[in-house]
């Protein structure tokens, strides 16, 4: 009887596997990419949830303009535009031959429908402020739209690039939450709730064909499961990897690449400006000086993140570094508390949403505040509870959250926004900013705004959230940074 050695059998088996693997990789055009959060539904024009844009932006839905990977605004469905001398009239020329995934054509009527729907009185758009200056949308011809503004708005093209401003069709609007129909290079295929969303290429796409023919978005919220899935290569990439402590292992492994980009996410220790004792600026200043940012970044994010001293992204050219103004100084903090009439400190609530920057950061900040006599009762909340209690209910003393919208310093002009900062001077500043189109003047106003909220110590400014992506080493074209919440797959391809 002829005996085969185990080694020979193994070698043969491996040989076969390798051959198969190589064959498969040579023509790989599909991608499985994981995200931490699953969208609540699939209409980017009617919810604040960034998870919707993370799946659909640039892949399924497109607007007149869009964000490029570096955050600049580039043409999308509008090939070019003219702006009148007074800055009030924008004439957009649409790309010819654009069709929706259901085969209907995208024309000026659809643009008018989308913008009118977003700015209507009964609109549920989460960013209605983006469209507030629009006075009228007129269809000139099928390929031309004229938008008239009530007042000049220097950020109008930027506003139109948001995921909340994408173009949708009246024919498919009723089912958009479960069956989104857009104009992008991928069309929505299937959503297994709680598990994954699949997209497939749209053959009738008007622009450059993407290299991928299908993409699966998997939703893995648990950091341990995320690590295991990536290590086992069940997924090809994880955008926004939730466990920064595991990144060194991926970096050391030749199978993977790690991209650490920046986001628009200002992570702040928000203070309820209307709730005593945080209605006293001295107390807020005391809190700011009690926080050691570097410890929070190292302890909660394992060193990933850039310290910030105001509500502005450090990679923005208009950023002012104000971190020194709220530097870690517990002595000063104690003095300020004394001045505010609270020499023995006080007790407040610290409500934490699920991400690890909040949960871990919260424990570190609680310990740092305890050093100056501020006791915190920590409550860990799920997102739904957080939105209900903190964001809508304003029932909190302190909370930690990352504001991931781009250029969102204008939230400080909304007195009913959850941290309830009410300063008419700041509100005037934002009104002026909105009507200013001159670039240098805008920069100046933005710098003033950053300084004003830092001077008022509205919130504790912690760090700019980093965006780690772990991916198969052979993947190319993933976004490094997150100028807006998006997982743009149009430029993604497999090497080899």
């Amino acid at each position, binding site marked *: 009887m002829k005996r085969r050695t185990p080694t020979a059998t193994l070698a043969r088996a491996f040989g076969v596997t390798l051959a198969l693997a190589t064959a498969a990789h040579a023509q790989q055009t599909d991608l499985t990419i994981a995200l931490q959060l699953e969208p609540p539904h699939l209409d980017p024009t009617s919810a604040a949830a960034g998870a919707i844009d993370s799946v659909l932006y640039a892949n399924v839905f497109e607007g007149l303009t869009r964000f490029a990977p570096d955050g600049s605004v580039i043409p999308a469905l509008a090939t070019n535009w003219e702006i009148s001398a007074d800055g009030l009239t924008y004439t957009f020329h649409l790309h010819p031959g654009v069709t929706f995934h259901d085969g209907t054509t995208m024309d000026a009527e659809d643009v008018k429908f989308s913008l009118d729907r977003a700015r209507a009185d009964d609109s549920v758009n989460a960013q209605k402020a983006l469209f507030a200056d629009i006075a009228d949308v007129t269809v000139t011809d099928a390929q031309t739209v004229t938008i008239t503004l009530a007042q000049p708005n220097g950020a109008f093209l930027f506003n139109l690039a948001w995921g909340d401003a994408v173009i949708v069709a009246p024919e498919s609007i009723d089912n958009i939450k479960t069956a989104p129909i857009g104009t992008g290079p991928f069309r929505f295929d299937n959503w297994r709730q709680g598990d994954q969303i699949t997209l497939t290429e749209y053959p009738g796409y008007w622009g450059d064909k993407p290299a991928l023919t299908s993409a699966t978005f998997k939703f893995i919220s648990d*950091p341990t499961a995320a*690590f295991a899935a990536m290590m086992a290569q069940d997924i090809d990439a994880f955008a926004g990897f939730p466990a920064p*402590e595991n990144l060194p*292992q991926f970096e050391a492994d030749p199978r993977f690449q790690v991209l650490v980009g920046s986001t628009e996410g200002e992570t702040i220790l928000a203070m309820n400006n209307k709730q005593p004792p945080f209605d006293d600026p001295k107390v807020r200043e005391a809190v700011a000086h009690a926080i050691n940012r570097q410890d929070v970044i190292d*302890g909660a994010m394992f060193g990933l993140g850039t310290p910030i001293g105001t509500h502005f992204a450090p990679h923005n050219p208009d950023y002012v570094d104000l971190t020194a103004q709220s530097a870690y100084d517990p002595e000063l903090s104690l003095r300020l508390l004394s001045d505010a009439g609270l020499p023995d400190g006080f007790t407040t609530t610290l409500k934490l949403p699920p991400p690890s920057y909040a949960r871990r950061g919260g424990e570190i900040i609680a*310990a*740092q505040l305890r050093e100056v006599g501020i006791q915190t009762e920590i409550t860990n909340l799920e997102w739904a509870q957080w939105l209900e209690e903190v964001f809508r209910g304003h029932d909190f003393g302190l909370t930690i959250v990352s504001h991931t919208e781009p250029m969102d310093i204008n939230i400080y002009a909304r007195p009913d926004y959850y941290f309830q900062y009410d300063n008419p001077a700041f509100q005037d500043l934002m009104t002026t900013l909105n009507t200013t189109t001159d670039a240098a003047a805008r920069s100046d106003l933005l710098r003033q705004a950053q300084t004003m909220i830092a001077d008022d110590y509205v919130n504790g400014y912690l760090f700019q959230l980093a965006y780690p992506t772990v991916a198969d080493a052979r993947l190319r074209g993933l976004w490094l940074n997150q100028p807006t919440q998006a997982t743009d797959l149009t430029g993604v391809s497999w090497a080899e």
Partner: protein
Amino acid sequence: MRLSLALGATLTSLFVGAALLSFIWTPYGITGVNIAARLHSPDMSNLLGTDHFGRDLLSMIMVGARTSIAVALIAVGLGMGLGVPLGLTAAARAGGWLDEIVMRGNDLIFAFPSLVIAILITAVFGPGAVNAIIAIGIFNIPVFARLTRGGALSLWQRDFILAARVAGKSAARISVEHILPNLANLLIVQGTIQFSLGILAEAGLSYVGLGAQPPIPSWGRMLADAQTMVAIAPHVAVIPGMAIVLMVLGLNLLGDGLRDALDPRLRGRKP
């Protein structure tokens, strides 16, 4: 000397001792964070190493033992305090409508898996040590009620109880003066077992974030916090895990040992 009893008693007293000691002394404070010293492996200055915030793990385990023991002990006390009287009442009125109500009520609670009830209660009333105690306590009630009723029913058939009834004692007095003392062994053994299940339940609840809230240390949450760090600093996960295992093992051995020692039917038999 019974080995299981000795081993169980040693492990249990070790943890109880550590928990008591933590009231007056721990090697380091557990409320401060020291990021520079995080994830140190065990060495001479930190016998069990440090966690991801640079806190001393030995100190955390000691205070965590306090949380676990307090929650489990009070919860078992609650279950016993309500369950035993219910069981005695049911046995005294065996077959009556009161018996039916008590026992069907117990069946109702029994029908749900204990941890599911606990999660339900803490999810509704909010996470925290007190709600964890109530949650664990509630599913201990039917255990003690059923055990007490079973034991009491057989005692009610005994001659000395008949004598007490002939002497004119009320059912309530007989239950307290004659039945309860004869059930003590049974209850102590069951109490020990339930105590270990309570420790496990507390760890489970705090693992999913429904137990004691930070900064109060608890073994379950230490384990949960450490799980993404297993690959870079295994001791952070292994140590609270071992604490839970050893504590539960100790209590189970103690319970077994006590049963062997206290049950007259087993007395004189070689273990």
